[in-house]
């Protein structure tokens, strides 16, 4: 148990599992997230993202396995460990009865490494008055204020758990711009959890996909997107049995043309389609959003009519 990042990893889990009764939230998760850059964690609802953060921050005991954050066993985080870890959740839970100045003063006294310039820089992007009550701030302003507080702590690791949830387009853009271009975020490892794929595509250097509590992917977003391909095939008769389609993530028939979203399929897939009677086959570019959605929805039950 040490207080520094172990082997350069800010987060490490080994065989980490968490059950709620019969439900598996985290399933033997082995993950090691290196220090530096922005790591995005994506997954459908119930994938175990929030549970993972709670275990990592010591707010939930694991059923089995171990979790370390900044090299420290999550169960034994000390106040000085917590000082090095910033956390922003989707609700931006701040004391609504206090003014911005009062909350700022309190945080300043709590965090020894507090950076007032960093706070001023970030809060400068928002129209927030020091005398305003936190409860009177709009959701976007509260998110910005929360981000400013977290970055001013100068954390080594900043965990953002769906921070833009419920924000309008303008507030969301402002939040992301601040995160990406603020000097305060430099030198800080960011774990960014979101359902918004365009955000992930924009901010993430590393893409981590969780599904049903298990790790499904860890690579750069471009690398992941390159693994997913979208094929359009004109098959005059009935298409192949989906169970026989290699790497199938999603299948659709639009205007009599078959669309296949597949994983890890190269040119050999063209031959497969032609063997199934395709007269014309061509490949379309895939957005990260489409790739991740296809990847995550392959196991999901869908309505019979879909």
């Amino acid at each position, binding site marked *: 148990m040490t207080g520094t990042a172990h082997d350069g990893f800010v987060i490490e889990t080994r065989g980490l599992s968490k059950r709620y009764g019969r439900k598996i939230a985290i399933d033997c998760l082995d993950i090691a997230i290196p220090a530096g850059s922005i790591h995005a964690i994506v997954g459908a609802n119930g994938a175990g993202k929030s549970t993972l953060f709670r275990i990592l921050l*010591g*707010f939930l005991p694991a059923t089995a396995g171990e979790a370390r954050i900044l090299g420290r066993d999550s169960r034994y985080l000390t106040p000085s460990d917590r000082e090095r870890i910033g956390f922003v*959740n989707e609700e931006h839970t701040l004391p609504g009865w206090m003014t911005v100045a009062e909350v700022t003063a309190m945080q300043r006294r709590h965090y020894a490494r507090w950076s007032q310039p960093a706070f001023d820089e970030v809060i400068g992007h928002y129209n927030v008055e020091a005398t305003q009550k936190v409860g009177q701030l709009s959701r976007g302003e509260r998110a910005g204020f929360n981000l400013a507080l977290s970055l001013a702590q100068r954390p080594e690791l900043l965990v953002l758990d769906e921070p833009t949830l419920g924000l309008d387009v303008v507030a969301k853009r402002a939040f992301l711009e601040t995160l990406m271009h603020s000097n305060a975020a430099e030198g800080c490892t960011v774990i960014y959890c979101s359902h918004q794929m365009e955000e992930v595509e924009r901010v993430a250097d590393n893409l981590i996909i969780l599904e049903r509590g*298990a790790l499904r992917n*860890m690579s750069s977003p471009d690398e992941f997107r390159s693994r997913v391909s979208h094929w359009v095939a004109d098959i005059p008769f009935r298409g192949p049995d989906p169970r026989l389609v290699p790497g199938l993530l999603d299948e659709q028939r639009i205007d009599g043309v078959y669309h296949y979203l597949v994983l890890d399929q190269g040119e050999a897939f063209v031959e497969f389609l032609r063997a199934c009677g395709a007269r014309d086959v061509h490949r379309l570019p895939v957005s990260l959003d489409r790739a991740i959605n296809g990847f995550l929805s392959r196991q999901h039950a869908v309505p019979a009519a879909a």
Partner: protein
Amino acid sequence: MRDIFKAEWLRYRLWVLAFAVVHLLLLAFFNRLTDLGQQPLNVYRAFAGAYSAIGALLGLHQMGTWRRPNQWINLLHRPVGPRRIALGLLAAGAAAMALAVLLPVLALLAWQAWGTTRVAETRHVLLAAAAFLVAICGYLTGAYAMLADRRHAGAGLVLIAWIAVAQASGAGAVLIQGIACAWLLIMVLIAFRPDLGESPRSPVAMAFTAITVQVGVYLLLVLAGFVGELGWIMQGTHPANMSHPPAGGHVETDRLSPRDRMLAGLAQASGTEVPLWREQVALSEVYPLERQRRAVPERGDLGNAAAVEFDDRVRRVHWTFNHERMRFEGVSLADGTRRGERGIGAKDDAFPAVATPGGPLPGMGKDDVTLIAGNSLYQYRAATGDIVPRILLPQREWILGSTPVGGSLALLGDRAVYVFDARHLGDGDAPVHARYRIPMPGKAGDLADVDMVELVDGYLVSFTFTWRAYDMRGATPYQTVLWVNDAGAVVPVATRTLHQDFPAFYRYRKWWASPVMYTLCTRAKHLFSAPDPLEAYATPPIPDDIRALAAALALVVACVGAWIAWRRVHGLSSRIAWTLACAIVGLPALVSLMLLVPRREAFVGDSANTRPVT
């Protein structure tokens, strides 16, 4: 911690201030209607209940809002230890209780002391402290209920129950409230941790929580017994509620008229005079001696066990006993001005014990009042406005009541019945001496009825000891008839053993359910309290079959406890400790084990999700 306190105080300050104002107005209103400093214990209990509930609401709201997952992370994920954060929040809660509860009570007390002519004494300051501590206990109980796992979230109520039943008075009662607060504070600090609802990690914390939960479980078991008793009553076979109670039992004896009870006592008696006595009893009036006291008022009591005030209707003065001065203080009924203080005799000496009004003496003036203080009975003479001693019992005896019996006065003490000549009492104002002293053939706590009949050559006195016959503390019920002759010699006439109407299984239910918990709860109840002479019982030894039942139950519980401990608890020493706890404490320990140590979550080895990382 200071920042957390300040932040939390900002959150509640306006609400607390508003409550304090309303509270102060209510107290002022009630104090206009009556003297709030001289209320019976039950009135203060009602206030304590209200303060405790207010505190609990604050604790529930405060911790209830913080314990939501994201709020909780936001609160605790900072470079401040959980304990310091907890102390900051709790200090804010305590400050809120001080402003909302303590300050209005102190303001009322100040008004009482300097704005009225009513009696204000140190015990009233203790009363203010008690109000504050009870509110804090309620607050901490509410906080614990929100922070702890829901299976034992109500454990804090154990400490509230302790305060409610504790026998200590005055500073002792406040001390108990302080201990309860400290205990609850430790419980809250144990529960206040990032991973809410998890079992305490350290053995000490686990033991601390487990003991509280075990007492709570024990009290619930006792309560379950009471619920079962309600079913017994509904069934119509409960001895105390049967229209025809079991013959020869103590319930039947208690329901008899004094004459029939006396005759029942004489039924088995033998002797030449007995037939004649039976005839005399059938023809004469049999007097039940009144027991006007079931509790002894103590100096410095927070509440009044009995009224400590009376009115002089001639002089229009209201006299109230002052515990500090041990004298009565007078206030004019006409204009509310002070009318000095009144003690014993011409020098207004202090009373030896707290004085309370008693029953009338034969020949006493119609506006006179008797006052009972410990072993002495005094007469307040309205004509002269002074207090004179009339009856003095031996030291360390307590007067429980007085009843005119023909031309005599029978005085019931905790150790004997005394008979005085009514003419002597009526003739002068000097202390009178008893004609007869009839020692009580039992303990005062067991005494249910004393019946007396005047004979040609003395008195027959029947003592019935059945007061706690339904409970394991009470003596095996019996009735004894004594004859005191003209010369004052006391002669036993007959003793009748009464049938136990309640089976031993029922009477000893609090004991066999957990002998250890019974002892612990009994001692906790009497902690810091002086031995009460009126609660002296001739408790019989515990029957062997009940001991065997308790032992068998402990054995079964130990076996089940060991099995559960081996399945749920990590570490050999912890398993052994739990098994021993089950064997020693019994059922409460077993239930606490199941509540505090949940089933282990199954290891995820059977997961269907076995695809490799891609």
